[in-house]
């Protein structure tokens, strides 16, 4: 029994046992023999029918497929993505995970995700570089401080490690922050959440893809869904409410399937329109930027809602910055100078010491924003057509729990308790789950 297996045995996990794949010795042997590593997942021809077709190969689609196979034995599953796996938000996010949300529903949900992230390296046999470095949300106004207290109390009731700290403690945790009363918006305190941190997003995508592939799931890249096939609906074309899904039309031909899952985040409306299902979603780009690498000096994730900025330092030493979404709806992912200018101004308010650092890159990804900053998950008025969308700027951290719960929803044909609050019908009954106070900037 290897060390790895004994380690696995001691942790609760639901994956099949596999030996470690990459090792220093393996690297040496391959280097000497001039061999390359084998393909990580298969490239197989697209079949004519599947039990489940998942549209979108981001962390949500991949996790859903993985848990369908691992937890429910449903393996005749295809993921189709119009581009490459992780080409959407899943490969563009700033990799922050945390569970200190505002509503009890949100807290329970995101906490389960952190739990799954905690055992992921072992479950999927991949180093996801989980850095549990702590997450700090700064308050610069009395009202922000009040929201922090509110969140801390909601969190504590659910056993989440989360508390309000004063400027002196903020300074101790992140000495580079200006905690004096000089800035225009001085730091009055912060919500501190030690279990939050960062995880390597690509590794999560690749880990789920590889593990799903092992269990028989097929991944088809450059397979674009052009239409969703629906029969018997009350729309003029047989789509919409009361109808049932029969498959999808792709640029590589039609596929029949009794279950189709929409995991397309920023493109979610376009896919659900094809099934005749209306969504409360608007598509907005979110931009991020990264600096040149320097020595490590920032040990936690720092978020400032009032200044619309957040920052963390990567293992390589680069500072990664993000902000709030762009100010208008668009499907274009062009970066803007306004973003960089505004970002730089705000970051320097927080950390005057980094004014000579240079930005290396900036980029944008599409976000599927909902009115209440909570997702839309589960059944739709079209039978067999499921949604796992509305992930806005906070969907990376929710990948594992969403996959797990969506898989259960599909396999049992019942909405699991954890995602019951996020059903689409809440927008006609008015039972919104308002998370703006905890999700608008803090991702």
């Amino acid at each position: 029994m290897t060390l790895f297996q004994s380690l696995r045995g001691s942790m609760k996990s639901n994956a099949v046992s596999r030996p470690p794949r990459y090792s220093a010795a393996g690297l040496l042997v391959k280097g000497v023999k001039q061999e390359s590593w084998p393909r990580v997942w298969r490239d197989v021809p697209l079949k004519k029918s599947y039990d489940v077709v998942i549209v979108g190969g981001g962390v949500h689609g991949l996790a859903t497929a993985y848990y369908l196979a691992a937890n429910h034995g449903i393996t005749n599953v295809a993921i189709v993505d119009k581009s490459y796996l992780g080409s959407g938000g899943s490969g563009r996010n700033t990799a922050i995970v945390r569970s200190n949300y505002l509503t009890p529903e949100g807290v329970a949900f995101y906490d389960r995700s952190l739990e799954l992230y905690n055992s992921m390296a072992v479950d999927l046999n991949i180093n996801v570089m989980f850095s549990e470095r702590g997450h700090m949300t700064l308050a610069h106004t009395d009202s922000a401080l009040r929201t922090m207290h509110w969140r801390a109390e909601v969190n504590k009731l659910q056993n989440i490690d989360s508390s309000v700290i004063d400027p002196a403690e903020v300074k101790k945790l992140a000495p580079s922050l200006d905690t004096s009363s000089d800035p225009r918006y001085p730091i009055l305190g912060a919500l501190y959440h030690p279990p939050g941190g960062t995880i390597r997003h690509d590794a999560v995508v690749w880990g789920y893809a590889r593990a799903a592939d092992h269990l028989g799931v097929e991944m088809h890249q450059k397979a674009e869904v052009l239409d969703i096939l629906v029969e018997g609906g009350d729309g003029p074309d047989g789509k919409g409410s009361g109808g049932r899904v029969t498959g999808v039309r792709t640029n590589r031909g039609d596929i029949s399937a009794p279950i189709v899952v929409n995991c397309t985040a920023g493109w979610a409306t376009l896919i659900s329109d094809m099934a005749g299902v209306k969504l409360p979603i608007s598509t907005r780009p979110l931009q991020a930027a990264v600096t040149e690498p320097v020595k490590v000096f920032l040990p936690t994730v720092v978020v400032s809602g009032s200044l619309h900025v957040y920052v963390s330092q990567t293992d390589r030493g680069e500072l990664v910055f993000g902000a709030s979404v762009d100010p208008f709806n668009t499907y274009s992912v062009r970066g803007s100078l306004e973003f960089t200018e505004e970002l730089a101004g705000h970051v320097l308010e927080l950390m005057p010491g980094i004014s000579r650092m240079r930005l290396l890159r900036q980029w944008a990804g599409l976000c599927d924003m909902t009115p209440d900053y909570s997702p839309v998950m589960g059944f739709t008025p079209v039978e067999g057509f499921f949604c796992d969308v509305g992930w806005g700027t906070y969907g990376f951290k929710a990948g594992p729990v969403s996959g797990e719960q969506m898989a259960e929803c599909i396999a049992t044909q019942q909405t699991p308790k954890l995602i019951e609050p996020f059903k689409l019908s809440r927008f006609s009954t008015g039972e919104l789950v308002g998370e703006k106070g905890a999700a608008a900037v803090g991702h």
Partner: protein
Amino acid sequence: MLLVPCPHCGPRNASDLSYKGESHARPDPNSATAEEWRSYLYMEDNPAGWLRETWYCRSGCRRFFVLERDTATNEFRNPPVPGAKLGGKA
């Protein structure tokens, strides 16, 4: 970023304006059912293409107006020209 053609001020940087979202006819609050009202409040067309949307010229003329923009390319259709209205034609 984006130059927004304000019908009163001419092209202005989008950061001078505030985006108010999709422009839809408001149902009559007296006769609309709760569901119709919520659908008006929350549901979005969100097309990747032409969209009628409301802008507010926050730092300029401080007026609301509707424009048509292609959300895939960010191009405006028939951008209004300031002063053209004075001639009697929109």
